[in-house]
C-alpha cells in the first residue's frame, strides 16, 4: 500500500506545497489526482463536486494539468508544435494556436519563444513550455512534480515568479518538492506527507524548514555539521592547466574549461561552486576520462592519467557519483546486483580474471543493501523500481566499496530525500576521515559549505575564486558564482580584498589558511 488516509484540501488561487521524503507517496498521490492511478477508497472533490478521474484525459477535461519531473517534449519540434501536439482540436495548429500561445505567455509572464526548437532550449525554458502546454489545454489546477529539482537558484526564482502570476490569475498550483527553503518562500500552505499519509498542513508563517524536515522524517534531525579538519598535505589528485573546447548547439566552438588547476589532498573535500553550465560537468567528465581535454595534466597519486581510459582511472581508485544517476550510473532495467557490477566489472568481488563472479557480486550487493540502508525487497529487482534516494544509496555504496582514493561526487544528493541526504553526507564525511579525497560539485550551496574543506568558484570554465567554507555565507558565494567577485573571498566585515589578494591571516579560520599549500595557487583568478 503506497498511500492511506490522505486528507488534503487545496484552496483555489493558492500555491499549495506537498513535501515528503522520496517514496513517501507524493508521486502516487499526484498520479491519483491526475487520473493515472485509481484509488482503492476515498473521494476527490473538485470545487465541491465529487469527481472520479479514470484517465489523465478526465483530469484534463476537469481543468487539472500536470507538469512532470521528466519533461515530455519532442526535441525536434518547435515550441508551437509541442504545445499543439495532441491538442490540435482546441485552436488548430497554426495562426489561432500561435495567438493563443502568445496570449498565455504574456498573461502569465512565461516569455515563450514560439518558433524555437525545443532541443535549443535550456532546462528552465523547457519547463515553461511544459507549463504552457497544460495552460493551453485549459488547466485551472496545475500539479508540478518536483519542478525545482532541475533548476539553478536564479531559475527557481523565475519559476516562482511565474507561479505567483498564475496564482494572481486565480489558478491553483499544487507543488511537490523536498527543498524546504523553496517551499517556504513560495507556498501559501504546506502539507507534509510521510509513509503514505498526510501528517500535517501548515502555513509558512507558522513553521520553519527544520520543523518541516522533522515532520517529514518523523524524528529529530541530526545537527547539520561537525567540522574537524582531516586535511593532510599528501596530494591525491593534481589537475593542472586543463583546457577543453566543445561545440555547442549552434555549432560554435567555445572554451568550456579554461586552464583549470587544483590539487586535492588526502582527507580533503574540494567543493566546486558555480551556476550550472559553467564547466563543472565538463570538469568532472574530464577527470573521470569521458572527455579528453586538449591540454593539461591529471595526476592521481603521482600517476599520470591524462590519457588513460575511464576504466583505467576507475581501477586506479577513482569513485564516481555522476550528476544524472539514471543515465550515467545505472542500468535501469538490470537487477540491483548487476548494477553493483557496473563500473567495477574488472574488480573483485565482481569478477575473477576475465570471468564474472555473479555469486560474489550478489553477496556484496546484499552487504551494500544492508550497510547503506537501501530500501528494496531484494537484489533481483530492477534498479528502475527503486526510489531516487535508494538508487543513490546503492550508487554511493558501490563507489565506496572499492576503497577509492578519490571520489568524484556530482550533485550527490540531488533529488534525494532528507533522510538519504543526511546519510550520504555522513558517508562522505566518514570516508574523508579515512583519507578519501573528494571532488564535490553541487548546486546546493549549503551542501557545499557544509561538506567542503576548500571551496572554489567556477565561472565560464575557469576557477575564478576560492573561499574558506568556515567563513563564507551562501550569499557571498552566490555573488562570486555570477562572476561579480573573484580572487579569495573573505567574509565581509570591512574592506573587501581585491582579486588574488592574500588571505587575511587569523581572521576566521587560521587552520584553513594553513591548509592552503602552494599547490592551490593555480586555482586563483586567472
Amino acid at each position, binding site marked *: 500500500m503506497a498511500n492511506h488516509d490522505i486528507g488534503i484540501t487545496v484552496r483555489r488561487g493558492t500555491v499549495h506545497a506537498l513535501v515528503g521524503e522520496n517514496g513517501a507517496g507524493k508521486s502516487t498521490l499526484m498520479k491519483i489526482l491526475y487520473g493515472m492511478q485509481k484509488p482503492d477508497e476515498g473521494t476527490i472533490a473538485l470545487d465541491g463536486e465529487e469527481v472520479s478521474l479514470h484517465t489523465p484525459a478526465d483530469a484534463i477535461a476537469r481543468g487539472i494539468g500536470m507538469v512532470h519531473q521528466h519533461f515530455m517534449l519532442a526535441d525536434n519540434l518547435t515550441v508551437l508544435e509541442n504545445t499543439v501536439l495532441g491538442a490540435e482540436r482546441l485552436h488548430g495548429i497554426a495562426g489561432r494556436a500561435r495567438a493563443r500561445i502568445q496570449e498565455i505567455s504574456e498573461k502569465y509572464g512565461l516569455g515563450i519563444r514560439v518558433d524555437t526548437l525545443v532541443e535549443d532550449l535550456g532546462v528552465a525554458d523547457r519547463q515553461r513550455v511544459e507549463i504552457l502546454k497544460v495552460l493551453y489545454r485549459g488547466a485551472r489546477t496545475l500539479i508540478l512534480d518536483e519542478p525545482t529539482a532541475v533548476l539553478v537558484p536564479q531559475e527557481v526564482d523565475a519559476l516562482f515568479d511565474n507561479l505567483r502570476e498564475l496564482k494572481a490569475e486565480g489558478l491553483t498550483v499544487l507543488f511537490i518538492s523536498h527543498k524546504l527553503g523553496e517551499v517556504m518562500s513560495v507556498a501559501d500552505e504546506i502539507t507534509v506527507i510521510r509513509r503514505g499519509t498526510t501528517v500535517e498542513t501548515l502555513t509558512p508563517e507558522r513553521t520553519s524548514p527544520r520543523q518541516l524536515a522533522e515532520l517529514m*522524517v518523523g524524528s529529530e534531525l541530526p545537527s547539520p555539521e561537525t567540522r574537524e579538519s582531516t586535511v593532510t598535505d599528501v596530494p591525491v589528485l593534481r589537475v593542472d592547466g586543463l583546457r577543453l573546447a566543445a561545440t555547442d548547439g549552434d555549432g560554435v566552438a567555445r572554451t568550456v574549461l579554461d586552464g583549470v588547476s587544483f590539487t586535492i589532498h588526502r582527507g580533503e573535500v574540494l567543493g566546486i561552486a558555480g551556476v550550472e553550465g559553467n564547466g563543472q560537468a565538463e570538469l568532472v567528465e574530464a577527470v573521470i576520462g569521458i572527455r579528453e581535454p586538449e591540454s593539461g595534466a591529471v595526476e592521481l597519486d603521482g600517476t599520470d592519467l591524462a590519457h588513460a581510459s575511464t576504466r583505467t582511472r576507475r581501477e586506479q581508485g577513482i569513485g564516481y557519483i555522476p550528476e544524472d544517476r539514471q543515465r550515467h550510473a545505472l542500468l535501469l532495467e538490470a537487477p540491483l546486483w*548487476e548494477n553493483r557490477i557496473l563500473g567495477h566489472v574488472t574488480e573483485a568481488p565482481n569478477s575473477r580474471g*576475465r*570471468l564474472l563472479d555473479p555469486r560474489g557480486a550478489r553477496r556484496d550487493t546484499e552487504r551494500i543493501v544492508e550497510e547503506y540502508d537501501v530500501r528494496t*525487497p531484494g537484489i*533481483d529487482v530492477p534498479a528502475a523500481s527503486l526510489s531516487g534516494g535508494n538508487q543513490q544509496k546503492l550508487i554511493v555504496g558501490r563507489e565506496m566499496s572499492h576503497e577509492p582514493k578519490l571520489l568524484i561526487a556530482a550533485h550527490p544528493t540531488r533529488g534525494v530525500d532528507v533522510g538519504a541526504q543526511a546519510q550520504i553526507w555522513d558517508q562522505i564525511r566518514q570516508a574523508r576521515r579515512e583519507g578519501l579525497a573528494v571532488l564535490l560539485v553541487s548546486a546546493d550551496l549549503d551542501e557545499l559549505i557544509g561538506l567542503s574543506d576548500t571551496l572554489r568558484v567556477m565561472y565560464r570554465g575557469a576557477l575564478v575564486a576560492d573561499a574558506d567554507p568556515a567563513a563564507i555565507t551562501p550569499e557571498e558565494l552566490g555573488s562570486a558564482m555570477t562572476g561579480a567577485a573573484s580572487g579569495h573571498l573573505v567574509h565581509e566585515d570591512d574592506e573587501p580584498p581585491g582579486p588574488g589578494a592574500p588571505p587575511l591571516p587569523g581572521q576566521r579560520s587560521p587552520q584553513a589558511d594553513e591548509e592552503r599549500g602552494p599547490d592551490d595557487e593555480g586555482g586563483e583568478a586567472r
Partner: protein
Amino acid sequence: MTRPAGRGSGPRRIDPQAVVQALAAPLLAIVAALAITSLVIGATGKDPFHAFQVMLDFGSKSDSQIWIVNKAIPYYLSAVAVAVGFRMNLFNIGVDGQYRIAAFAAAVVGGAVSLPGFLALPLVLLTAMVVGAVWAGIAGVLRTTRGVSEVITTIMLNSIAGSLIGYFLQEGRLAEKEGNLFHTPYLPEATRFFTLPTDPDPIYGTILIALVIGVAYWFVLGRTRFGFDLRAVGRSESAATASGVSVRRMIVTSMVLSGAVAGLVGMPTLLNESFNYGTDFPAGIGFTGIAIALLGRNHPIGMALGALLWGFLERTGTQLEFEGYAQEIVGVMQGVIVLCVVIAYEVVRRYGLRRQQREVGAELAASPGAGGEKAEVSA
C-alpha cells in the same frame, strides 16, 4: 544496525511470482497466436482444428522431425548472429548478406584446395567466419567513424554481397555450369562434414557447430566481463561510457562477432547438403534469424525452440496444401507468433515492473522501525 528479518539477505533465489511471470509470457503468446490463427483459418472457410491436427500428425513423423532439425541448424545460427547485435542495441539486418558472401568464399576456398579433412574443414569454417566478420565489420566501422546507422549499411551491404556473388558466379570466373545452374566447384569428399546416422535420414553433423555457438553465446554474454560490458552498452550507452566501456570499440567488436557467427549460417548447407555454392543456394535465412531472435527473446534455448518451431511450421505447411488449405497460412502463423511473443513479453514486463514498484512501496509502508533507524544512521 539490524534489519527486520526476511528482507534482502538470506538464501533466497527463486521468487515464485518471478517464475509465474517467466512462464506467463510464452503461454500467453502461444494461446493468443493459436486463437488468432484459428480465426484467420476460420475466415478462409476451413476448419482450423483439422489444420492443427494435420500439422501435428505430419510433424511427428520421424522423417519430418529430422528434416525440421536439419532446417533449424542454420536458422539457429542466424538467430544467434542477430541476437549478438540485439543484446547491444545494434540491429544487424545484414546477416543475410554476411552468410551468403561468407558461404560463397568458403565454397570457393574449399573447392580449390585438396587437403585432408582435419585441415580443410577448419580452413573452410575459418574462411566463412572471417569473411562474415569483415562484411559486418564494415558496418561497425562506418557507424563509429562516420556515424552511419548500421541498419542502413547492413541492408546496403546485403545488396552489394548479392551483386558480388552474382558477378563471380559465372562460367569462366569462379563457377562452372551444370544444367541451368551455375555453381562453384564441388568440395572434395574430405572437405565434407560428417552426418549422424539416424533413421530414415541422417542429421547433419553441423548441428555440433550450432551447439558450440549456442553455449559460447550463453557463456560469453552471461559469464564474462566482456559480455557484461556488451550488455551494459545495450542497456544504456551513457551509463556504459561512464562505467569505463569504450562504446566505439564495443560496437565494432560486436558487429565483428555477429558477422563471424553469421558466416557460419551457410555451413550446414554447404558442408552437409549442397557441397557447392550455386545459384540455388538458400537465401533469406538472415531475415528468418531476426524473427527467431525475437521469438526466442535472445535467449540461447529460447532461440533453439524458436528455430525448431520455424522448421516445424515450414515442414507441416507443405502438407496443409494437400489438404486444401491456403499455402500462405504458414506465413500468417509465423507472423502472428512473432507479434504475439513480442507483445506478450512487453505486457508481462510492464506488469512485472509495476508489481515490483508496488512491492518497494509496500516495503516502506510496512517497516515501522524505519523512522527510528534513520535517526540512528544520521545521528
